[in-house]
């Protein structure tokens, strides 16, 4: 549950930066750190100590990010020097001949995360809407608590549930249905070919979706609730339908927070390890069909780190970790850029 707390906090940070109306207390003019009126000597010493301590904590965050990057780069260096850019472009992963490439796990990571978002975002959006706009008061609490409970379940439980409960049902009923109805379609049909094993990229993506829904729904609910009642009620008073209120008032007001929530979900999907390892099939291969087994970066690491004996093997695994690090960074940067462009466009409009 600490995670969803953190999720809400991070979303709050994004929101605070994004929108004017949410910061209710205007900073007093000229209130820089040094200008705080001095009290007795004791308390000012306490203040300074407190300030130093908090600054230390903040520095710790930066230091650990830089330290991690340093460790990853030095660890990955032998592999990067041996394979160069081919490491990113090659799907070969052969410990016998010491040939390693990141393409298959990278592909699997991106594809499963995209599936998770495609399924998870609309569902979490719906859940958040029900809680904030549609559900009767007595139902809001139970749904909210249920979502927080789901967010607190350890990922390995999702993995086991996926393998022992979801996969058999999926292979017996859903997969044949998908092959029958979507298989004949041009292009899309290719995604649903192959034997219905219940294990594979699609299963992994769906399990990921279930896992990130509580996170995204919790954040979206929290930000939807920040919309001032006055705004919402004015819209209703003007005769707007629920749909129009959501689309034209709630969403524009909370856009930044919603994107923040989606990014948190994406971050979790990219890095999720155990649940994916259970259901993805762990094959170093790239298949167009979503029914076929694949691999993600984090599941490759979880699978192979313990027995990676040769230095180049270990180094290649660290290089994979570096790729994931960079991938997450790129996602974050894209999210920031999106927010900045949104804000800029808003500026043009007003």
């Amino acid at each position, binding site marked *: *549950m*600490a995670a*969803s*707390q953190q999720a*809400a906090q991070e979303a*709050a940070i994004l929101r605070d930066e994004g929108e004017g109306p949410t910061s209710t207390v205007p900073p007093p003019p000229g209130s820089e750190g040094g200008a705080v009126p001095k009290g007795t000597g004791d308390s000012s010493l306490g203040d300074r100590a407190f300030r130093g301590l908090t600054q230390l904590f903040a520095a710790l965050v930066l230091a650990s990010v830089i330290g991690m990057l340093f460790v990853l780069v030095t660890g990955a260096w032998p592999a990067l020097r041996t394979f160069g850019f081919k490491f990113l472009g090659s799907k*070969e*992963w*052969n*410990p*016998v*001949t010491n040939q390693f490439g990141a393409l298959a796990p990278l592909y699997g990571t991106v594809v499963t995360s995209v599936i998770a978002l495609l399924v998870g975002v609309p569902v979490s959006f719906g859940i958040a809407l029900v809680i904030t706009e549609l559900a009767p008061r007595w139902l809001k609490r139970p749904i*909210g*608590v249920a979502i*927080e409970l789901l967010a*607190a379940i350890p990922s390995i439980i999702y993995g086991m549930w996926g*393998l*022992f409960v979801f*996969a*058999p049902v999926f*292979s017996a009923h859903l997969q044949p249905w998908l092959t029958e109805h979507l298989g004949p379609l041009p292009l899309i049909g290719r995604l649903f070919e192959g*034997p219905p*094993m*219940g*294990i*594979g990229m699609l299963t992994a993506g769906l399990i990921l979706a279930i896992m990130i829904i509580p996170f995204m729904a919790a954040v979206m*609910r*929290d930000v939807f*609730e920040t919309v001032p009642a006055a705004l919402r009620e004015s819209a209703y008073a003007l005769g707007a339908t629920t749909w129009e209120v959501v689309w034209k008032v709630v969403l524009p007001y909370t856009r930044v927070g919603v994107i923040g929530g989606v990014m948190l979900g994406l971050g979790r999907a990219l890095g999720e390890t155990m649940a994916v*390892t*259970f259901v993805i*099939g*762990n*094959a*170093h291969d790239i298949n167009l069909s979503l029914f076929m*087994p694949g691999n993600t970066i984090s*599941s490759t690491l*979880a*699978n*192979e780190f*313990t*027995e*990676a*004996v040769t230095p180049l093997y270990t180094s290649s695994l660290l290089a994979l970790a570096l790729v994931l690090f960079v991938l997450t960074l790129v996602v974050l940067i894209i999210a920031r850029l999106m927010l900045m462009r949104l804000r800029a466009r808003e500026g043009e409009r007003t």
Partner: protein
Amino acid sequence: MTARPDRIVFRRTRLLVSIVSLVGLSAVLTGGDALAKEGTISGAGATFPYPLYSKWADTYAKDTQVKLNYQAIGSGGGIKQITEGTVDFGASDAPLKPEELDKADLMQFPVVMGAVVPVINLVGIKAGELKMTPDVLAEILMGKLKKWNDPKIVEMNKSLKLPDVAITVVHRSDGSGTTWIFTNYLSKVSPDWQKSVGADKSVAWPVGVGGKGNQGVASYVQRINGSIGYVESAYAVQNKMAHVKLKNQAGTFADPTEEGVQAAAKGADWSKARGFYMVLTDQPGAAAWPISGATFVLLQRKQKDPEVARAVLKFFDWGYRKGDAAAKELGFVPMPSSVVELVEKSWEKDLKDAATGAKVWPAENQASK
């Protein structure tokens, strides 16, 4: 904000975290304490023999007050730790080559054996009913035979009704001594396999899905109709899986029983294997199960603390002498006594006190135990 219930839980989590870290801290402290004491020996490595070592250690501690602290972190980690000398012994499922032993100044010896078993999930086919030759097994695993009713499989199983079901190969996704033994066998019996795939703890599998650990492979095989995988024999028995009869070097279709593994061990000439580098795959012997293997323990040749080394050797000596029943119960196969003799001779020959060069084994007070 709206996260009031969160905050309560958050506080609880914080409490939990601090308790956990306290416990962890005390564990580290007492752990360090215990290491300093003479009563504990430490080892790290393969996960496969972990159930046996912990069972042995449990009984042994009652008899002798000597405790074993074994971390099942994987063979790779075990080799690293013993090379660096952070543990008293390392454990590996795959033997190190004599050159590798020389390079790291280590010695190794086999402790117990086990079988790796191809298991299948085909409706109507029971354990030991399906027969296979090594060629057919290799071709299936390379994805060359795609259906269970392929003429090559039907040919030696005329009495069975093999369905028109696609074959799904299930392999290990994590690096593993089991995979090492299995692929070592395949490389010996199929030149094609050796050329295109090879043998290692993890290989580039031509086809199939990967399960994590023996349990992962076992559950994938049980999930997928028409699948074939490979697990340690103990898992095949526990999960009541259908094993395949394999044609061995002598031409008989063998079963992965205790007798089958011991037959393979007897057929092997251990006395000629330098550093006990012996792989029990594809061994002669009428009943020999062709995919057998031993699990190994690694020690530093030059012992900084001969007392600790003696404690380790005493533990394994005890295991050889009194641990057979426990081993069999867990699905392991004890080493033949002729091999145990060779092992204890090598302790005498290869292990030296780093400071004085004196022998570490036999222990002087061995009779008093």
